[in-house]
């Protein structure tokens, strides 16, 4: 696998994906759902970046825009030195092999009329991996072992498997074309805790063995703390804070990250209650507030936050979009 030695495997710069709201007879755009506005992030080879945020913050759209499943309006998606947004369909094709995705609901992403062997082998056939069908069957058997499924079950249909097993099938399908980066979009969110632990362990083993990079899209901060090397926190289409996971969990600098971390109920019986939760709801992404997008819910809001968008302040490896963040020069 060729990897550009200089810089990260994936770098997203100033990404913007807005969806038009069409109304009236002429279906004219009367506004936009501003799903993703100005997103920067980077994923290093062999590492995990978690993209966290609440529903509607745009995290799934970021993943889909990277894979060009949604059309971004602006920005760059640089994978291994090449801007994917500039490529035509034919030039994009090899990258579809190097970037794979695993979704939240495995049953919805597996064709119920196909045997799982064919589901896993489909991508190989499409990209010319394996000399013939029997070779591909051998490869599927190997992949099944790797994701800890019984290879004898590969001729069954998706509905014959449990939720955890189906997610293993989706992972095997992603691995089948030998990718460098897998986007996991809430890949463990629908699973029970005991099964979730099994899948998280599997993802970590695969990363160690194969040097995979993960863009892990999730709302579950417990999973992020355990799995991700780096984390980017999203709110209303923007990254509000990013940096190494341990550092962000230890001392979050953005008030939204602080509120988000405090909102997760602890399982430590000695601790409960704690700080008052963030008030209010997330504003609509079709009409984000002026100034700082978070000012309507921020406990530390100042006058200038209502009119002036804060710049991204960096200190060390941590960046935060807040006037009060260390390094913003205005604290």
């Amino acid at each position, binding site marked *: 696998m060729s990897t550009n030695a200089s810089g990260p495997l994936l770098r997203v710069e100033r990404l913007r994906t807005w969806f038009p709201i069409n109304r009236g007879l002429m279906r004219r755009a009367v506004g936009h759902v501003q799903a993703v506005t100005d997103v920067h992030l980077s994923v290093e080879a062999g590492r995990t970046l978690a993209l966290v945020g*609440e*529903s509607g913050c745009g995290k799934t759209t970021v993943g889909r825009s990277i894979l060009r499943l949604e059309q971004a309006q602006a920005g760059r998606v640089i994978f291994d030195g090449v801007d994917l947004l500039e490529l035509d369909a034919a030039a994009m094709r090899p990258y579809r092999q190097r970037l794979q995705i695993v979704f939240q609901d495995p049953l919805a992403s597996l064709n119920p009329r196909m045997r799982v062997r064919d589901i896993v082998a489909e991508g190989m056939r499409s990209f010319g991996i394996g000399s013939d069908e029997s070779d591909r069957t051998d490869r599927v058997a190997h992949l099944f072992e790797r994701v800890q499924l019984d290879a004898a079950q590969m001729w069954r249909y998706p509905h014959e498997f*449990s939720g*955890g*097993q189906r997610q293993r099938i989706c992972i095997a399908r992603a691995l089948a074309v030998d990718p460098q980066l897998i986007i996991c979009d809430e890949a463990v969110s629908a699973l*029970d*805790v*005991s*099964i*979730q*632990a*099994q899948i*998280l*362990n599997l993802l*970590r083993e695969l990363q160690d063995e194969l040097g995979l990079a993960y863009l892990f899209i999730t*709302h*579950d*901060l*417990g*999973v992020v*703390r*355990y*799995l991700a090397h780096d984390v980017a926190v999203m709110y209303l289409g923007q990254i509000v804070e990013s940096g190494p*996971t*341990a550092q962000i*969990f*230890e001392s979050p600098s953005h008030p939204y990250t602080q*509120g*988000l*971390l*405090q*909102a*997760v*109920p*602890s*399982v*430590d*019986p*000695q*601790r*409960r*209650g704690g700080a*008052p*939760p*963030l*008030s209010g*709801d*997330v504003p609509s992404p079709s009409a984000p507030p002026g100034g700082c997008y978070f000012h309507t819910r921020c406990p530390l809001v100042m006058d200038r936050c209502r009119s002036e968008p804060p710049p991204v302040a960096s200190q060390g490896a941590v960046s935060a979009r807040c006037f009060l963040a260390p390094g913003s020069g205005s604290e």
Partner: protein
Amino acid sequence: MSRLLSVEGLTTRFPLAGVHVPIVDESTFAIDRGEVLALVGESGCGKSMTALSIMRLVPKPGRIHSGRVELLGRDLLGLSVTEMRAVRGGRISMIFQEPMTSLNPVMRCGDQVVEAIRLHDEVSRKDALARCRELFVQVGIPDPDARLRAYPHQLSGGLKQRVMIAMALSTRPELLIADEPTTALDVTIQAQILRQLLELRREIGMSILLITHDLGIVNELADRVAVMYAGRIIEQGERTDVLGRALHPYTQGLLRSMPALATPGRRLPEIPGVVPSPAEWPMGCRFATRCQLAEDRCRREVPGATARSDNHVASCHAVEEGRAQAPAGGEPEGAAR
């Protein structure tokens, strides 16, 4: 505190491939006035069916087979349909996971709550509406007058759940059954709703039966905890005991496998295998197929309850024989959370 609800030997069976499978099997627990009991377990363990059995809303072809459900000493299973209807939504209310599917989409929120009030109380529409507005304020709905006239789709998920809570509280129930009340909500909204439930319980002294799969929410809200696995309650006790000094290998395994408690970079301790489907339930301890401590006796004999203290019991042969692992609990190994 006085006893509000006591459930004894409750068994609810569903016919499955010709046999009657006890989806809820000999459940015994009690809730005092003002107390929050959490019924916790993974999907399919029977926790929701326990709630539906208490409400006598078990979907067909399921049937309550045996047991007693006493509310203030009166057996609900012996009530007539009419009597039960007065209890349901009256003395016991229920809120569900998905507020959108529980609210009528073509009826204004205020009208729905008014309907619920007038179903149980003979009051004028005007008085019911005034009471509804009070409830909206009580459950923390901002701008209540506008929300009375709003349709459900005009509200966010958090607000819809608050409307559901207002409706559930409208008849001043003694027991609120909350079935995964925050599972569909974002964490910051979940924190708001949990805080609201705690406040309401303090203000009006109602009891809550909380049904959840999330041990964090249990810790936040519950006084006592009952852990369910494959239809049976396998451990029960005070919140601090069950989460801090868990006895049953399943409870211990659940706590250990939580990523929030694990050390990053180290392998998560898994519970091997999957929850068996009801058709494959083993005859002895139902956890025996996944338990590292399982011996012959576990596979043959249903374990009885072993009490570690008055308030903390576990149904496990290993615990009874003193060969269980040291109590495991929710103290984080590394940094907090």
